[in-house]
């Protein structure tokens, strides 16, 4: 950010978020009544909810009212469709080009999905990958059945804002038993500073389906506060295997607030990886619900904060059903004067006997001015469970650095290598080799900024 402060302050009011705008939006898109009503109800929930303060337990270390003024953002423009990836804005094309193997892909620029490619053989198997708007027209019953059932107006002010205002969006539907081996890619890009975008993701994997989705957001750096409020809902039915990788690479100037809800059915397996690298302020609220026996969720996270970036991760491993397991590992490196907050909760409901749930958050402080707060928590109402949590905030090990120096490696590179190794434990758990390599490169690039500073 150009002026060197972490405050995403007000700008001249270009447009305001209003109920009228919600009406205009839904009318112009010709949406069905259930959705119109849902958007307006969400707007009312948003308007009624006060801005969180540090007195709210969830926001204790992120003074959102000071960091973010919700006035003055212009709604992002609608963008024209493009014939192929070459037609995308150059910055986004670079992001797309860095991606390895891809099955289907969808790219959103500002308010609109502008590119959609689905290989014919996958479409023939019934795989649906499209914008959520398109899905509303082509598969209205599916969207109505699932949209807004996991992310509701009770999920906080910003989730409600997203439900009122989302446009474009990603819809992935994998029918029963269909296995999509190569990752599905979604990209979201903002072109203009000072705008607000509202991304929305809905993923439904039917029984026995398998899919991996890389959901990536990126932009250039902006000299004005820019807002991204996103929400994702993901459902894995019986025996389904879903990998959901979120890559947040917004430029500086962006405030990113996401609310993601993932639901695992009987014997389903969900792996999530949150990679948080960009923006001035990034807050991810991720809750996984283990709804039925035999379900397993791996929640992974990697974050690298520099400058005055402020990253906040809030997680819940919500064990509703017995005989389910979850494992969380979030690791972050904090440089310069950056801050991170991790608040994680394992909640075991009274009926969820035989739960196995683990939670670990580790932070590496790279500079004296950086700070990490880690607050792991357990709330256990069943007696036959195995649960643990651990949190550490530590510095670089001087002996490790000296060892690398003594092997000819310059200091900056030695630090990068150690940090890199620190993250390997997380990234190695990702089942997709290609995606793992891409993320390593993204982390590497972010760390390389350090040496230049």
């Amino acid at each position, binding site marked *: 950010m150009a002026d060197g402060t972490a405050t995403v302050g007000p700008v001249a009011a270009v447009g305001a978020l209003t109920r009228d705008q919600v009406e205009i939006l839904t009318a112009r898109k010709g949406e069905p009544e259930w959705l119109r009503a849902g958007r307006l109800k969400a707007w009312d929930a948003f308007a009624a909810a006060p801005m969180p303060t540090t007195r709210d337990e969830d926001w204790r270390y992120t003074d959102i009212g000071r960091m973010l003024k919700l006035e003055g953002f212009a709604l992002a423009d609608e963008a024209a469709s493009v014939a192929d990836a070459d037609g995308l804005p150059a910055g986004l094309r670079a992001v797309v080009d860095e991606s390895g193997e891809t099955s289907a892909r969808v790219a959103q620029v500002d308010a609109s999905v502008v590119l959609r490619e689905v290989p014919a053989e996958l479409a023939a198997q019934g795989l649906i990958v499209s914008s959520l708007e398109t899905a509303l027209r082509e598969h209205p019953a599916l969207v109505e059945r699932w949209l807004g059932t996991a992310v509701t107006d009770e999920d906080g002010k910003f989730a409600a804002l997203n439900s009122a205002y989302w446009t474009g969006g990603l819809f992935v539907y994998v029918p029963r038993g269909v296995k999509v081996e190569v990752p599905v890619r979604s990209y979201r890009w903002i072109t203009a500073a000072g705008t607000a975008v509202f991304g929305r993701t809905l993923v439904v994997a039917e029984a026995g389906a398998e899919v991996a989705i890389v959901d990536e957001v990126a932009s250039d750096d902006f000299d004005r506060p820019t807002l991204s409020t996103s929400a994702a809902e993901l459902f894995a039915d019986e025996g389904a295997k879903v990998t959901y990788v979120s890559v947040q690479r917004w430029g500086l100037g962006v405030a990113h607030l996401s609310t993601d809800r993932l639901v695992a059915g009987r014997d389903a397996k969900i792996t999530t990886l949150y990679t948080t690298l960009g923006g001035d302020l990034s807050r991810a609220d991720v809750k996984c619900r283990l709804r039925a026996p035999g379900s397993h969720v791996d929640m992974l996270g990697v974050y690298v904060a520099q400058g005055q970036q402020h990253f906040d991760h809030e997680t819940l491993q919500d064990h509703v059903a017995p005989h389910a397991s979850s494992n969380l590992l979030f690791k972050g490196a904090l440089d310069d004067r950056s801050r991170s907050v991790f608040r994680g909760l394992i909640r075991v409901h009274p009926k969820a006997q035989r739960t196995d749930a683990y939670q670990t958050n580790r932070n590496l402080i790279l500079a004296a001015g950086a700070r990490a707060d880690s607050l792991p928590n357990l709330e256990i109402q069943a007696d036959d469970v195995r649960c643990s949590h651990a949190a550490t905030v530590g510095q670089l*090990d*001087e*002996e*490790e650095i*000296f*060892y*690398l*120096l*003594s*092997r*000819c*490696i*310059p*200091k900056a*590179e*030695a630090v990068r*290598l*150690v940090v*890199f*190794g*620190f*993250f*390997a*434990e997380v990234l*190695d758990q990702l089942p997709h080799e290609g995606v793992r390599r891409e993320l390593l490169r993204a982390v590497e690039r972010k760390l390389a900024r350090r040496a230049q500073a």
Partner: protein
Amino acid sequence: MAQPLLKITNLHAEIAEDGTEILRGVDLELNEGQIHAIMGPNGSGKSTLSKVIAGHPAYEVTDGDILYRGESILGLQPDERARAGVFLAFQYPVEIPGVSVANFMRTALNAKRGEEVDIFDFQDELEARMGMLEMDPAFAARSVNDGFSGGEKKRNEILQLAMLEPLLAVMDETDSGLDIDALRIVTGGINRIKSERPEMAVLLITHYQRMLNYITPDVVHVMVEGRIARSGGAELALELEERGYDWLREEAGAV
């Protein structure tokens, strides 16, 4: 005669944190191609000397100098010393979780040579060197020293020595923790490297005569209480084996 490769004069060093003096006037000269052994009781300062030569930030040199190829290296960072050809095989090699031996080795080699090493040449070389040390090729993919047994760690140190081709190799108790076969393999590796590059000088810190059966030193030094208390030929090691260190301690105390 040509200048010594390493010349340490009246070296005093203390623990930077609390000012405790550990090295109290070390004098040592090592010529190119020579092998010197340093022996001495526990806590006498041998590892400290090796780390001070390598530039460990925990120690502060308060007096004296370390000349390497005729120039003081006290102002050089550890990585600069390493690139100039100083290598330290650690008594306790450090674990670097998540960084593979191959990645680590390649990064080190690139830094040493100042250019990107060809990946295939690198792999060939690494494989050959691992073969020489009878290391399982699977080690290349494992995290550096992470979960390695004591002996495996020491072999890994020699692997690095072989790859980085230093001019001065300081080896701190490379023999400790090795079983008889491993000792043969490791000393065989060192001798092999030495025969390939006879100009390399070796400073061998050890407690045991048995290592010196495999690697014959030109000079044996005994370190006592932060100083070289005595120097002699290979036979000095045998004498120490027999008599222990007390007589030297008494002599040192009498000084």
